């Protein structure tokens, strides 16, 4: 097996991707533009004896599609999937300032599914936008959403390459039932990110470090220019100013479905240490929850950054749930089941909710305007919450889906 090696020849006009012996399911592409002489293709691949012929054919087709005529192209491959090879070659060619068409992989059927405003967003799994190896199996771990991140997890020098990877992943990777989210960059760079995702199967755009409604308006407006698709939005509030403007941010666009908070930046903004107890951020978290609720949005909590601390995560989710958050960010697949479990209502909560829903259905059937349980009157919001609790209990396996048909079951 040959391993990718540093080429002594390093005068590339453009390049993209990851190189070196440790690269898995990714590749590096270099392009050197020439005046004449046609195309020279060099390939070093760990899967040469499995897919060498196919990779060469793909790369030749790519050079043609991307308008590369006279050039040397070198690809060092560590088992990249076809859509990754395509993304790296395209990014390298664009890095060489060759003005040409995009080279789009097929938009798979599973990339055209839609989402809904009120779906569960208990867990959202962050995937670094320039690391294709984590993407292919991400959905198997059952997150409610995956986030292809173009912002903090991508090095400044890799921003352009990551956009192409994210675009191709949206078109080619089966994310199952997970909602497909993309976190864009701040400001102008973020607006430019949108053209790589809007028409490619992205359900929801996460806008980072939002401080006022204007930033949401800008993203909303750009999306309107780019697509008719009902792409949703979720602003992250990560500063003192953002917290103060939380309600106007939450109501800035019809596309908003949730509000979330980023505590690393927020605590830095306050000039305090982020602690496990989180007392320093209690006000901000409650402000975000309150603003979200007031605007009819979900409030989602930040990530738990210690992946080797399942007990701490469980405690953090229970606390978040107690405050009014409906979801938690995940940075490792093994956090997902813990988060889901912690968001499942207890059996006592579930049976109480069932009783309320039964009383509500009963009142409906009898045409009564007032719902009562025993001697107690039940307000409409209580019914609404009970319906949600029942749904979560069924999904969490605490309650059987056919609970309503079971006579008097508790």
């Amino acid at each position: 097996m040959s391993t990718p090696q540093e080429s002594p020849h390093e005068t590339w006009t453009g390049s993209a991707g990851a190189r070196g012996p440790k690269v898995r399911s990714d590749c590096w592409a270099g392009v050197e533009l020439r005046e004449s002489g046609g195309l020279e293709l060099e390939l070093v691949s760990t899967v040469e004896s499995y897919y060498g012929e196919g990779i060469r054919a793909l790369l030749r087709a790519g050079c043609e599609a991307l308008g590369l005529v006279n050039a040397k192209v070198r690809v060092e491959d560590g088992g990249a999937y076809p859509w990754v090879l395509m993304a790296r070659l395209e990014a390298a060619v664009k890095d060489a300032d060759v003005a040409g068409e995009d080279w789009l992989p097929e938009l798979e059927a599973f990339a055209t599914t839609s989402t809904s405003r009120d779906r569960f967003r208990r867990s959202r799994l962050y995937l670094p936008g320039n690391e294709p190896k984590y993407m292919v199996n991400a959905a198997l771990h059952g997150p409610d959403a995956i986030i292809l991140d173009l912002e903090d997890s991508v090095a400044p020098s890799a921003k352009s390459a990551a956009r192409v990877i994210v675009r191709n992943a949206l078109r080619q990777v089966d994310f199952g039932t997970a909602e497909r989210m993309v976190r864009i960059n701040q400001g102008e760079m973020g607006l430019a990110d949108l053209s790589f995702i809007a028409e490619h199967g992205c359900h929801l755009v996460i806008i980072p470090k939002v401080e006022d409604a204007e930033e949401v308006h800008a993203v909303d407006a750009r999306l309107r220019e780019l697509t008719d698709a009902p792409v949703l939005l979720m602003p992250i509030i990560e500063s003192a100013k953002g917290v103060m403007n939380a309600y106007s941010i939450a109501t800035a666009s019809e596309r908003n479905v949730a509000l979330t908070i980023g505590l690393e930046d927020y605590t830095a903004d306050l000039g305090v240490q982020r602690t496990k107890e989180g007392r320093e951020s209690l006000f901000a978290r409650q402000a975000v929850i309150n603003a979200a609720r007031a605007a009819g949005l979900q409030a989602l909590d930040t990530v738990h950054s210690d992946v080797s601390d399942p007990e701490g995560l469980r405690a953090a989710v229970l606390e978040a749930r107690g405050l009014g958050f409906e979801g938690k960010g995940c940075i490792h697949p093994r956090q997902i089941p813990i988060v889901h479990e912690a968001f499942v209502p207890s059996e006592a909560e579930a049976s109480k909710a069932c009783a309320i829903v039964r009383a509500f259905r009963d009142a409906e059937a009898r045409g009564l305007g007032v719902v009562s349980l025993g001697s107690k009157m039940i307000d409409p919001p209580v019914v609404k919450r009970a319906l949600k609790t029942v749904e979560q209990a069924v999904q969490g396996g605490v309650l059987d889906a056919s609970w309503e048909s079971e006579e008097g079951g508790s």
Partner: protein
Amino acid sequence: MSSLENFAGRQVPAEINGRDAIPYMGVGGRKMTGRKAAPLIRSAADYPASGDKRTPSLKEALVNAGLRDGMVISTHHHFRNGDLIANQVFDVAKELGVKDLVWFPSASFPCHEHLIQYLEDGTIHHIEGSMNGPLGAFCTAGKMRGMGVLRSHGGRWQAISDGDMNIDIAVIAAPTADVFGNATGDRGPSACGLLGFALADSIYADHVIAVTDNLVPFPCLPWQIQGNNVDQVVEVEQVGIPEKIVSGTTQITKSPDRLLIAEHCAKFVRDTGIMRDGFSFQAGAGGTALSFAIYLKEMMIKAGVTAGFVRGGSNKYLVEMLEEGLTPVILDGQTFDLDGVRSMRENEGHQNTSPFTSYNFHGKGNFASMLDVVILGATEVDTDFNANVVTHTDGRLLHGIGGWQNCLASKCTILAVPSFRNRIPVILDEVTTLCGPGELIDVIATERGLCINPRRTDLIEASRGSSVPILEIHDLKREVERICGGSPQRAKTTDQVVAAIQWVDGTTIDCVRGLS
């Protein structure tokens, strides 16, 4: 070279290293009669009445044993990648100018790369045993003079006891021994657990040398190897590096996808009712198998279930189950880490086993077939549930068989494999090298879900209602090919057979050809 088609439709050589080969005849197809091989008759009068069989050096011991051209020399892998003895034996052979030896190890490890020079210069003619890493690459390149022969642990016992292989000199690394040759692996500065892989050699070999770095006064207790079978005892500075028995294959995985496979397996075992009071399981080396044991343990505690027995290699996780009362017994085949070694000394409830008790097909039963469930790995599986454990799809020989073939006899055999590795599909139309027939493989467990062998309608029925995703294997293969970009090119091989793969009954189930 003439070849024959075996029961599985594979072309196999008619002759292996000068012996007539018997093509595979199907599971249970070969009926043996006659008597087993027997060791040479020796007289106590020819050994010191004092019982002191010491020889000052390994070199003198090998000379005394009559080391000469063409002999079969055996060593063992209870130190796994920490073995220090095999290399020294052949250093001596080289020094003495002896040629064309056959190395008959119970397994080889990367530490044996040292021996390639002796394969090149003719000191070693060929290897009959597993060939990992560099040795496998050397063999597949067609550079070995004779044909490699790969056997399972049980198949190695079968080959020795049936007389297919006669061992001229067995050299046994013994962490503790006395002057008479009684030896044990569970104590001493180089304690590595047990010496079961050397047991057949100690009984059947023409000449047995025990090498130790911890000589204790007679009698060495307990004795795993009986001194009555030992010709000479040699003291050396160090026999092995016990820390290195923890090789990559015996560490728990951190990969979320592999953890998912392990979790699927454990849930399947729970949901199908295999996990019940008194049940038994074996999870081999390999990160996924180890993680399976951890998930299963949690489920056993939650359900209040205890096992009847567990088959080791003992490791930290099985020892915890023993110490927490989740199983009364570990039947040890080898030892996978130092917690296992410690527990063997300290805890009741360990029983030393050997390939004879656990795996040998030519015996009056064995433990493997009594197991309710076993979790194994594979390099490739195909849509008929056949599996490969020795070569990769590019044709390179990289792994040994170990106890894998023998464990297929269990009541439920689960192969825990990723459906692809770094773009290379694991689920194929046909395996590159057939090591285990599909009729013995019940479940293929991947990160995407489990495929149940259609022959096992009982398991299909029992898995209804389980939360584990159950897939049809052809659908899974299609999905894998969609992700990986089609089916891979197949290996381009020469006509030269570089290694034969033996089935548990001594027949040849497939062979490995040289790479062009």
